[in-house]
């Protein structure tokens, strides 16, 4: 075959391919700018036994928006009117900065404290919208006993279990937090115990706190060292709140990152256009020394 003929054809083919390549662009990022977004008032409010009610308000953040230290305040609600009532008294909450929390701005009462057995209503008025919610503060649960078991990772590290007396008729679930002496905060075992509300009588629950790198007990992980003085905080939740915190673990960033197949949205007890949780929490504190 004639060489020049071959060359001619190769050039034609390559030109055609180059033409095709030039006219198609790369698009390495997901494009969220054209997707739907509606603003919601996010509520995280709690009333605990013997404590002032606390409410944190924020706006949801669209996926396409980068949130840095300069823009984060755009999504913190600082000028809302927040009212809490327990059926006996009503109080408009005052607000202040709370740098230990995100969002870092809290609305809190100065007179009203949580009383077990009462229902609490919440009203938030912001930017022309009014959202409401009601919750119940159940009686706190009693830890009957604690149990230490050796771990296989070290002779000096133990696992900690609690035995809790459950009243099935109360339909309550539990969140358990622990705080070692060296820690500055209570650390949650990220499980809502009795979350299907089916248990009854004295039941055993294994605690597995998940300290973060900023916590002093980070190196011990979910274990407890012999000699540790451990404060235990057990929070009792009603049915609605139990279901919310059970699902919250699934919808949180760690669980949601692997499995995208969530087929139903997280249930909220806040009216539209609000979202989040307003919950009562029956609190009991205990202290033990790891043996």
């Amino acid at each position: 075959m004639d060489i020049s003929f071959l060359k001619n054809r190769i050039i034609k083919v390559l030109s055609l391919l180059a033409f095709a390549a030039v006219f198609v662009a790369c698009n390495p990022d997901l494009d969220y700018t054209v997707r739907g977004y509606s603003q919601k008032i996010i509520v995280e409010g709690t009333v605990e036994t013997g404590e002032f009610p606390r409410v944190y308000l924020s706006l949801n953040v669209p996926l396409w928006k980068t949130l840095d230290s300069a823009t984060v305040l755009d999504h913190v609600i600082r000028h809302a009117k927040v009212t809490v009532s327990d059926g006996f008294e009503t109080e408009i909450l005052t607000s202040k900065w709370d740098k230990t929390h995100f969002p870092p701005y809290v609305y809190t009462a100065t007179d009203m404290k949580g009383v077990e057995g009462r229902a609490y209503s919440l009203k938030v008025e912001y930017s022309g919208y009014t959202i409401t919610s009601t919750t119940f503060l159940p009686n706190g649960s009693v830890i009957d006993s604690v149990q230490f078991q050796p771990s296989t990772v070290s002779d000096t590290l133990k696992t900690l279990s609690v035995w809790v007396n459950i009243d099935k008729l109360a339909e309550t679930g539990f969140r358990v937090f622990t705080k070692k002496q060296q820690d500055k905060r209570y650390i949650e075992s990220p499980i809502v115990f009795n979350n299907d509300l089916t248990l009854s009588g004295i039941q055993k629950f294994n605690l597995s706190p998940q300290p973060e790198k900023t916590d002093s007990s980070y190196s011990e992980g979910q274990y407890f060292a012999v000699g540790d003085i451990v404060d235990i905080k057990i929070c009792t939740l009603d049915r609605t709140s139990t279901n919310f915190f059970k699902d919250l673990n699934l919808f949180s960033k760690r669980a949601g990152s692997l499995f995208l197949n969530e087929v139903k949205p997280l249930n909220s007890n806040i009216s539209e256009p609000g979202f989040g949780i307003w919950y009562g929490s029956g609190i009991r504190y205990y202290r033990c020394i790891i043996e």
Partner: protein
Amino acid sequence: MKFHILLLVYIVTSHYCYTQTSHFLIKDTTDSNSIVNKVQAIRELEVRSKMATANIKSGSGGLVIDVNELRKLPNIVGDADPFKALQYMGGISQAGDASANMNVRGGNNDQNLVILNGCAIQNPTHVLGLFSVFNPDLIDLMRYYKTGIPAEYGGRLSSVIDIKNFSNIPQKVHVDGSVGFISSRLALKIPLSDKFSFYASQRGSYIGAFVIPMLIKVGINEKLAQNDFEFSDTNIGFNYALSSSTKLSGHFYTGNDRISISQSVKYSIDENNSRWGNRVVGLQLNHVFSEKFSMAHYLNATEFYLQSKVNWLTTDYSLNSLNRMLNYKTDFVYLHNRHTFKSGLEASYNQTLPSKIVQSNNDVEVPNQSSLFYRNTDVAWYVRDEWERGNLLLNIGLRVGAHIPTPKIATIGAEQDAKSIFYGGLEPRFFSRWMFDQRSSIKFSATRHFQYLSRVPVVNFGVPLELLVPASAVNKSSSLWHISGGYFRNIFENKWELSAEMYYKSFSNLLEYGGNLNDLFSEQELLSKMYTGRGWAYGAEFLVKKNAGRFTGWLSYTLGWNYRQFDNINQGKAYLATNDRRHDFSIIGMYKLSDRINFSATYVYATGSRLNLPRSWFVVDNKVVLEYKGYNSFQMPAYNRLDIAMNYKLKPFYKINSELNLAIYNVYNRANPFQVYYNTTNVANSMDFKIKMSYLIPILPSLSWTFHF
């Protein structure tokens, strides 16, 4: 020429070195399908007299795939894979980047019946779908159905890919092989006498030993060295002509995959490794009673296993899935006047372990309660007749199937009673063709199908993590009505083919897993989160194909809609399915520059998949929460890609014929989404949360050397 030869087709062929030779092509009457599709291409031979009007006359929706032609197309890392090339056909969309998984006319990937030598293969892909499990050097015949599926095929809803290994006894020893960038393969076909031959092939990758060290040398992150992706497969078989009318064939296949990812914090996984594989062993007996009557028997045993270990949220999980099947099938073919009758029986015994999960927390193993071993027997009988008279051709059949679960299911160390519910029913199959003249025809088909074993994805994009779920007392068998019709026309002396087809599919009892990893640990949760719903898909396919000349190829376009409706999902409202592809477009071009050099290029464009992604996020209880709005309402960016390849035949060296394949995959480096993940930063009272996507394959040139002698 009594050796079950009925149809002799005399073909003038031209060898690539210009010598003229004559060959007979034989028709195997024990493998009777549409007669016009019986032309097979032989390696190194160019078939000139291929029936140009095959697409007009074909008796059912089946296509006989020209394996050698598809092997010329560019492919990832230079490894020719005809199975993957099917994705360029109309109505078939690729599940994801580099994936060999396919969605056919709105069907799910697990609805494709992939058959190797008469035996269904559960998972026909290697290395996340980069390669199919079929060694291209051994494929003798590849037949594909997406509509008008005849009654002899059952058990899956959407398509059939029927692959047969080489079955004729060769005249001399054949050696085929390939040396490539990621993997190599070698296949031997050896005749021991004029009645007996055997074959063996081996294929394997060396990513960890060669590719990753090389990438590290050129500056890729050293963490890659801690990851491992390997596969290997082996085929062994024989063909024995017991007499002039009886042939016995046997085959054994084993394939294994191993993936180990040391750290994937994006998914909260600290380490994981997975192994999976298929094993198939089988016998096939063909006997020809007369020129009109023949039979075939198939006996196969298969196993598919998946073993995954994951460390997730500081807990070790071990997830095992298993399916074993013993299958017997027999076909009888009887030719009478203008009729081709075919009837047969199929029976299989299945054992399925959907998921056995062992959780290790606090170094104490806690097996989950969902490790149930389902056992069931599937039986089916079918009969069909293909009848041609004048311009009319009818293919009418009936398949009667039944799925019978065993009343006992085994758990760990014990057996317990289970509800035994019988599933089954009639599967009528109807196909008709009317020829207006020798250049145009219309075709219509209406078929019903049942499927008793589903592979349900746990994640809906990226890594194919799936659960095997048989029909049981809780999960009904899936079913489908499929109606399709089209117009076919050839122009310019049959050098060009045009076609337009429309389809409508109605699915019942589809499965979708709505739970989370936590839910896999309880049988009650697992089953309660296995939602059942329905689906429907409709659309139109258009094809323009050029068959002759230096430049050949085709252009296919599919316009489709694909919906699902589940009572437990999206508040019961209908939503677009994950594999909804509104537009799917492929251009394939092959240019023969000379007898030694040919070029090929493929371009694909498809509307992005539907995903259930959040619209916004917020923080409650120091946890990032995702806000969703409408199930599957997010659409991924469109998929598009251009690949090019050049094949260059080298001069024979000591009777070794070989060719070099230079391919460039993803020429313009399109970042097609493979995986989406959540990226969070949480620094001192400020949080940022984004969904990002990763893509698997950038522009990837490859060079491989293929040889045969």
